[in-house]
């Protein structure tokens, strides 16, 4: 157990209380005229950033909230001030 995440409701907790919900990709695109490729881009494709990424988490074993956080994937640590560092 190494990762900790800061739930906006419950505070800093053990990472295993949470569910990873993917890279932040923005709201669902409009359906009209969307091509298979751009739909796939939204659903499956990842940037796989080796560095700080914005991502979704759910505090599944706690309060259940979905939230975004910034995490550095090269050290598996949450980043306090992502804008300042990125």
């Amino acid at each position, binding site marked *: 157990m*190494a990762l900790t995440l800061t739930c906006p409701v419950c505070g800093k907790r053990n990472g295993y209380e949470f569910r990873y919900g993917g890279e932040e990709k923005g709201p669902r695109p409009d359906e009209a005229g969307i091509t298979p490729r751009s739909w796939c881009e939204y659903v499956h494709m990842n940037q796989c950033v080796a560095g700080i990424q914005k991502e979704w988490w759910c505090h599944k074993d706690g309060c259940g909230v979905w939230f975004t956080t910034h995490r550095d994937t090269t050290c598996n640590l949450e980043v306090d001030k992502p804008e300042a560092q990125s």
Partner: protein
Amino acid sequence: MKRLEKLSTLRINPAKTLHFKYKNKNLKGLSGDTVATALYASGIRIFGRSLKYHRPRGLYSLDGESSNTCMQVNGIPNVCAETTLLADGMEVKAQNVAGSPETDLKGFMDKLDWAMPAGFYYRTLHKPARIWPIALKQVRKAAGLGKISAEFQMPGKYDEIYPKADVCVIGGGPAGMSAALAAAENGLRVILLETRPWLGGFFDYRTAQNGAGLSLSQSVRQAAEQLEQNSNVRIFTQTPVVGVYNNNLVTAFQKGCETDYFDERYLEIRATSVVVATGCSERPLLFENNERPGVMQIGCAHRLAQTYGLLPGKQAVFSIGHDLGLEAALDLFDLGLEVLCVADIREDGQDPALIEGLQQRNIPFLRGWVATRAHGNKTLHKVTLATIPGTLRKDFSCDLLVASAGMTPLTGPLSLAQAKLAFEPYTGFFIPRQLPAKIQVAGRLLGLNHPATIEASGRLAGTLAAGDCGVSVESRLKEAREKLNQLPGPDQGSKLVTAPVQGRKTFICFDEDTTVKNVKQALAKGFDATELIKRFTAAGTGPGQGGIPGHNLPLFVAQYHGDIKATAMPTTVRAPLVPTYIATYAGSNHDMCKRTPVHDSQKAAGGVIRRIGVWKRARYFSKDFSCRAEIENVRKNVGLLDASTLGKFRLWGPDALNALQRVYASDMSRITNGKVKYSAMCNDDACIIDDGVVVKRAENDYYFTTSTARAGATVEWIRYHTRYDGWNFHMVNLTDAFGVINMAGPNARKVLAKVTDADVSDDAFPYAAYREFMIKDTIPVRSMRLGFVGELSFELHVPSSYMQALWDLLTEAGKEFGIRHFGLEAQNVLRMEKAHLIIGSESEQRTTLHDVGLGFLWSRDKSEEKTVGAVALRQTENQEARLKLVGFKMEDPSRVPKDGSIIVDNRIRGYVCIARHSFALQEPVGLALVDAPLAGEGTRLQIYEDECNGQHLYATVVPTPFYDPEGKRIRM
């Protein structure tokens, strides 16, 4: 062996004798002994044989740095005798010996080293190919140290705790103790972890004066008592740290003593700040036969005497590179050891008082000399010393060689914590250059040696750790820094890597029998990075966790490359830092599983219970796994199924409908009061992930069910897919709040009518309707007319606390109508006859809603709702070459194909999801996923079962449902 008595430093209790067995002999030790010291006291010098060459191995260190003293204790293999306290009645055996450690029949292997250069097996043993299987057997037999039988049962009790700490201090020596005290003075929760059974570290056994009139031993024991009184400090002794992880998670295990509730206890500590004060071990001296029994490290010799009262030998030579070696020589001399000579690698830099001590005792002292060879067949009888360049040599006959190249900082916890270590030329240590957040370091591992400095550095680290916890510590920090600055700094470390040796048996790693020569061979082959050499020669991969080669190997490699300063890189350290029992890691291992409210009564009724996902459920109610009686009773009379595991949810609020529209394929705005709506959820590849029913209980207030498997993830799923919308709706997971009974069969209504005053006639409560009413005026139920098993059925959702009562009421009321339980397998067959889908049985990850024939559930007219899966449903709607769900019947009705059989022609065209003999239809029927071109009615399917030896079965695609295709029986 006679023990030295009356030493104030002893940690043994001469009054308490312990008995143990070794080599079929009854031996004695004392309370406080380790298995190793007790054996040593009994005259044992060879503890086992080495892995590859079967060389005799003895007591070299006392903290488990090598596998030399790995023994079998009470049937448990690879027990480190150095770190295991002796207990009464222990049975101890040597490992990896054919015969005894003294006369090992495989001792000849030592002469065959020429045939086994580094990586020799990669280049040999495969030519010709047929010899490899034979060689492989021999390789397997020769490998491995301990033995364990397949039937072995590990005795003892194993436990776990997850304490929180503000500051966790690793190492209970003088630095760690000072750090703990400093942190505790700030009112913080402190945990102090120490591997040995007592605090005090390398002060504990030393009689040197601390400058205030006390010996180091006395002063540190006083400090320990003081610390034990401090209620803010929780001290764990006999607790080696095994892991340090991100965000200061420290794992360790505590060995229980007699009064403890456990044999071993796993600890997982989340600390705000961690202080690493692990101190040092010794850097092994590399010379010929450097691991011959009779050669030991300074601390080992010194502690044998001072801690255990055992004079380590009679006549000794010292070849050391650190003042602790000089101190030990003096001390041991005074205790009666004949010291023939002390050779110091260092030309200068020694403490003058120690030199004077040697002179006073007439102990010959050679500066710039070093041991180059240990002689003696099995144990030591002679030592050759030489000058560092190897130009002058001297021999000494002796039975003890105290040998050590210098100190090695125990940086394991720091490395695991991702600290960046770098070679520091003055001390010769790998020292942390960059520490992770909220990790502090103190004491000897920084190269400090002076007692006051060590304590002061502990104080500083403890204060810094308090600062990490948010305590304002500025003035104390200043004070601690000033104090430290006034004291002596780090000692210069000795730089020697290898003595001037010629032979082939200079061991850089004892566990894997890796010699300096092997390392050179690896370098010559192009394995020029330390990590590659480790992999190629296995150095550092044995039970000693790199305790012997960890420091020397990178120094040696760097020296080979010609520039220690630039190229010395520490080797990778991995958890666990101390080998740890699987039993200990497993701890209490609670199995957490859900039971339905009628679990016990179903079990009592003969239910065969299976774990299905997070639940335990009744699969059968008889030994007849065809479930014929259960099935036929549902078709003929009436049956009760416990369906409590279905996911059940309330969803309400102004945006409730929006949320439903988002996740369900159908148009959920068309739900009408009093009716159930069946629909499905898909993922964004259009694949079906769930199905269930939704009812509207009030305006903007819905109650819906999901499959058992999806219950746990549904709230999360809906919140995820609405997370950008800011909608105002709420959900409650009522899965456990309601028990569910599916009462199905032609007599179901009669049974229900007996227990309720509500009108349950088909007119008042038709198929696909939803009603709420009371049972016996007491139990509120939510009821749905559904038809999963193809008969008249009422699904009754009842508050869980009433579930057993309702179950009993129905059982009682149904007696006259032939009611009985049915289980999951019966349901499985019943629903298959109706071709009703179970997700995961008739679908797989890639199966779309269209593929299973439920495409009609999808409402294509709600693109504004952005329904999950809708885009892909559109894109896959007319896609060819997908696996489609079909029903089939067998050409030969005497044979039911097995589930999971494949459908083939010249390639695989699909597979049988389920097939059973249908008692209603009196022939086998089944469902299969087949390539779309084979999905047409009347298509002949060729079924290939496992082990069929080319004998195929044949089936024909038929329309579904198989049973009651008009659906009359569900509408009865």
